[in-house]
């Protein structure tokens, strides 16, 4: 089966997010007001061959823990659907 996986990796709460800060500042100078807590992370999409949803889930989790996220500073979440 082919699965479509979407992974979101975000800086953890309380962790400095220079990119988010810069965007918040830029939006403010562009006169967008009332904007709060901008955070910027990564969005990954991939297609993955796997036996079943559960196995794919485990694989993706492992990939995130090992490579895709740095769990010292980032959280991740993902969705899997059949492609």
């Amino acid at each position: 089966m082919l699965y479509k996986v979407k992974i979101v990796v975000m800086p953890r709460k309380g962790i400095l997010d220079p990119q988010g800060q810069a965007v918040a500042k830029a939006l403010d100078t562009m006169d967008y007001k009332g904007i709060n807590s901008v955070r910027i992370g990564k969005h990954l999409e991939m297609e993955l061959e796997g036996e079943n949803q559960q196995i794919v889930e485990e694989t993706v989790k492992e990939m995130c823990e090992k490579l895709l996220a740095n769990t010292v500073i980032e959280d991740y979440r993902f969705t899997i659907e059949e492609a």
Partner: protein
Amino acid sequence: MKFGVIVFPGSNCDLDAYHLVKDVLRKPVEYIWHQQNSLKGYDCLILPGGFSYGDYLRCGAIARFSPIMQEVVEFANRGGLVLGICNGFQILTEAGLLPGVLLRNQDLKFYCQFVHLKVENVNTPFTNFIEPQKILKIPIAHGDGNYYIDEKGLNSLLEKKQVIFRYATAEGVVSDEANPNGALFNIAGVISEKGNVLGMMPHPERAGETLLGSTDGLFIFQSLLNYLEKL
């Protein structure tokens, strides 16, 4: 006494570290290819600066899965000396050999310039040749050198004297204005608990000859040689 400079795809300061050891220190040195899986006969490993694997995803994140890194971890665990410079520092944190992480520079820009470093601990294999009050002038060149660690981590680093270099003014004042990248506590370099693995954002290999504008980087290498000779 043999040095090894590890070459990852995308390393680009490998050459500079190699030349410094070979032509300035005049010590034996070899390049070590990232796919190699033995580290026999080396006394000190240098993980050089550059953009290993393009620094895609996160700096150092992909390099740490190179075959050689398993050997580096074992080498370090056996007490071998490892110096990670810039990208090398990033790889060492990703590999868990050093605490903390290196985030994007606070204002998101890449900075190439000389900085001044206050040396916080001169009792390490990398700093024993440095006089306690000496301020080092060494260049940085990075976009991701904003050191971060949580409070507990920082306290533990301070307690165990693992913070080695801090960004300071030429007079040695640690201040915001002397901090080029937003690093927590102006941290420019940290050492492992056992004291044999050093990571630093500034490039000592770029400060090893008068015609390059500073020779202060030599203090670090001289310390290493001192330490190794006494072994």
